[in-house]
C-alpha cells in the first residue's frame, strides 16, 4: 500500500520535474484567451516553453497574486482598473519599453488611460464595451436610446443586469449623468435608490454569459458585452447592441508583469510577441473580441472590422467611459450592492 502511494505521489510530482529544464514563461489568463497556435509559434520561435494557468475572475487573480510573493506568474491579464489596483498594491513591475518595439502598432485611443497613465505598467490586449442588448423580435431597437429605457415598466420581469457591482452601478450612475467611477457616497446612494426601482423588473443577474438568457428567450432587454452580441450574431441576428446616448462602459484587458515574476525578460519577449500584428490578428480571429492592435485591426475582414458591436467607432468610444479604480469607495458600492441584492 505504502509503495503504491509513493508511486502515486511521484507520478504527481513528475511533470514538474520534467519541465524544469527548459526556459519557461508562466502565463496567467482566462482559458483559451490566446490562440493555442500562437503559443506554439512563440515556443518554436524563442525556445521558451509557455506554461498556461487559468483564472476565472480578476478578483480571484488579484487575491492570489497578493498572496504569492515569489515564484509566481510572468504575465497576467488584468482588466481595466485592476491594473491600477494591482499597481497600488505593488503587484506589478514597471515595463521596459525598449524591449517592446511592437507597442507602436497599438491603438492610441486605448493607450494612456486613467488607470495606467503612460502605460508604464500595462499593454492593452483586447477591449470591448458593455451596452444595451435588445431582442429585436420583442423590442424595436430604434425606441431604445438611453440606459433609462431599462426602467420602462413595459419590460418588467424581462430585464437582464450584469452580476457585477461596478458594471451595474456604472450603468445607473451614467443614466443620471454622473461618472461611473464616482467615489461620492451621495451619488452612489442615489444610484442605489434608482436601482432599487429597477430590481423588480430584473429577471436575472448574469455577467458570465449574458447572451444566453436572451437566446433562451428569458429576457428581452438588458446590459450585455459587445463581444457576446457578436458571438450570438454568428447564429442569430435577433440580438442587437445599442450604445446608449449617455455613453457605454468600456473595458480593456491588459498584459502586465506581476512583481512575483520569475523571468522578467521572457515576460517582455512574450508581451512584445503578442503585440506583433500577425499574432494579434490570429488572436483576434480566434477569440472574436476587438484587438487593441490597430495594424492588426486594419488587416481584418471588412465584415468583422465593421461589426458595430465589436468596433463601435471613435465617436462612441469618446462618449463612453473606461472604468477606473475607486479605491476604498468600493466598500460603499459593495454595501449598497448587498442591500440591492437582499431587498
Amino acid at each position, binding site marked *: 500500500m505504502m509503495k503504491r*502511494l509513493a508511486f*502515486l*505521489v511521484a*507520478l*504527481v*510530482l513528475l*511533470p*514538474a520535474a520534467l*519541465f524544469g529544464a527548459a526556459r519557461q514563461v*508562466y502565463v*496567467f489568463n*482566462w*482559458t*483559451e*484567451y490566446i490562440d*493555442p497556435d500562437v503559443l506554439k509559434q512563440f515556443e518554436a520561435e524563442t525556445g521558451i516553453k509557455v*506554461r*498556461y*494557468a*487559468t*483564472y*476565472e*475572475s480578476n478578483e*480571484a487573480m488579484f*487575491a*492570489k497574486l497578493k*498572496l*504569492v*510573493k515569489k*515564484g*509566481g*506568474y510572468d504575465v497576467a491579464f488584468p482588466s481595466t482598473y485592476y491594473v491600477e489596483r494591482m499597481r497600488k498594491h505593488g503587484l506589478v513591475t514597471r515595463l521596459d519599453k525598449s524591449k517592446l518595439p511592437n507597442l507602436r502598432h497599438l491603438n492610441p485611443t486605448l493607450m494612456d488611460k486613467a488607470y495606467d497613465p503612460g502605460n508604464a505598467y500595462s499593454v492593452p490586449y483586447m477591449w470591448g464595451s458593455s451596452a444595451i442588448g435588445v431582442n429585436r423580435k420583442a423590442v424595436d431597437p430604434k425606441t431604445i436610446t438611453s440606459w433609462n429605457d431599462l426602467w420602462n415598466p413595459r419590460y418588467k420581469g424581462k430585464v437582464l443586469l450584469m452580476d457585477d457591482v461596478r458594471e451595474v452601478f456604472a450603468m445607473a450612475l451614467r443614466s443620471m449623468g454622473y461618472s461611473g467611477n464616482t467615489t461620492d457616497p451621495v451619488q452612489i446612494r442615489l444610484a442605489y435608490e434608482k436601482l432599487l426601482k429597477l430590481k423588480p423588473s430584473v429577471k436575472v443577474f448574469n455577467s*458570465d*454569459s449574458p*447572451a*444566453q438568457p436572451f*437566446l*433562451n428567450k428569458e429576457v428581452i432587454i438588458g446590459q450585455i458585452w459587445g463581444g457576446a452580441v457578436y*458571438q*450570438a450574431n*454568428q*447564429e*442569430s441576428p435577433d440580438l442587437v447592441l445599442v450604445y446608449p446616448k449617455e455613453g457605454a462602459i468600456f473595458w480593456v484587458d491588459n498584459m502586465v508583469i506581476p512583481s512575483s515574476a520569475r523571468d522578467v525578460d521572457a515576460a517582455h519577449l512574450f508581451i512584445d510577441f503578442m503585440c506583433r500584428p500577425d499574432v494579434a490578428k490570429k488572436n483576434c480571429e480566434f*477569440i*472574436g473580441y476587438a484587438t487593441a492592435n490597430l495594424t492588426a485591426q486594419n488587416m481584418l475582414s471588412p465584415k468583422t472590422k465593421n461589426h458595430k458591436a465589436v468596433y463601435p467607432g471613435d465617436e462612441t468610444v469618446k462618449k463612453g467611459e473606461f472604468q477606473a479604480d475607486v479605491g476604498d469607495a468600493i466598500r460603499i458600492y459593495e454595501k449598497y450592492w448587498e442591500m440591492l441584492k437582499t431587498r
Partner: protein
Amino acid sequence: MSRVFRWVYLGLIYAFLYVPIAVLVVYSFNSSKYSTNWQGFTLKWYGQLVSDSPLREAFVNSLVIAFASSVCATILGTLAAFAFYRYRFVGRKVLYTFIYIVMMSPDIVMGISLLMFFVTLGLATGALTLLIAHITFCLPFVVVTVYSRISGLDRSIIDVAKDLGANEMQVFRHVVMPLLMPAIIAGWLLSFTLSLDDVVVSFFTTGPSFDILPLRIYSMVRLGIKPEINALSTVMFALSLVTVTVAHLVTKEKT
C-alpha cells in the same frame, strides 16, 4: 411497498440523474459554439479534444489528484473515525468540531487560509499543496460517513476479539474494518466526487504549472464554456460506464 412502485421510483430517480447527462451527450454533437440551441450535427468537438493537449493534461491531472487524494483521505479518515470512537485523547471533541467547520467553511475562506499557510511555510504551490488541500476538504466526509456506521457498532465485538487474543491492529484490520466496508467505500466515492469537482480551493492551492480540469472549465467563462467540454464529459461518462460494466461482469463470474 409494491414492486411496481419501487421500479417506478427507481426509474424516476435515474431519469432525473440521467436526462441532463443525455442532454449533455446530445449537445456534444451540436455544431453551435455559443448558443444552447441546436444548430446541426458535428464531430468537430471530439476532433478538437484529440488535439487539445492542455485540456487533456488538465484532465489527467484532475484524475490523478482525485484518485490520490480520495485514497489518502479514506485511509486517514477511517483511522480518524476509529480513533474518535475508540480512544480518549486531549482535544477530541474540539478536533471533531473542526471536522464540521471544514465541511461548512466557504471555499474561498478555506482556499485563502490554506494558501496563506503554505506561503508562510515557504512551500511552493503545486501538485503537493493541491493534494494536501484536497485531502483536507475530503477528510470530513469520510470521517462523518464512517463514524455514522462505527457509532452503531456493538463495543462488545471488540472486547470479544481482544479476549480471543487479537491485538489492536488485528481488531481494526479484521474485525472493525470489514464491518465498516460499505461506509468506507461510500466515503471514498464521495471524496473522489468532491475532489473531481472542486474549483475555488484548488485555484488558490495549486501552482502555475499544475492546471486541473475544473479550473480550466470555470476559467472559460470569459468566452463561454466550449462544447469541447461536453465532448470530454461524454467520453469520460462512456469510460465510467464501460468500467462499471466490466467490473460487474468480472465480479459476477467470480461469485
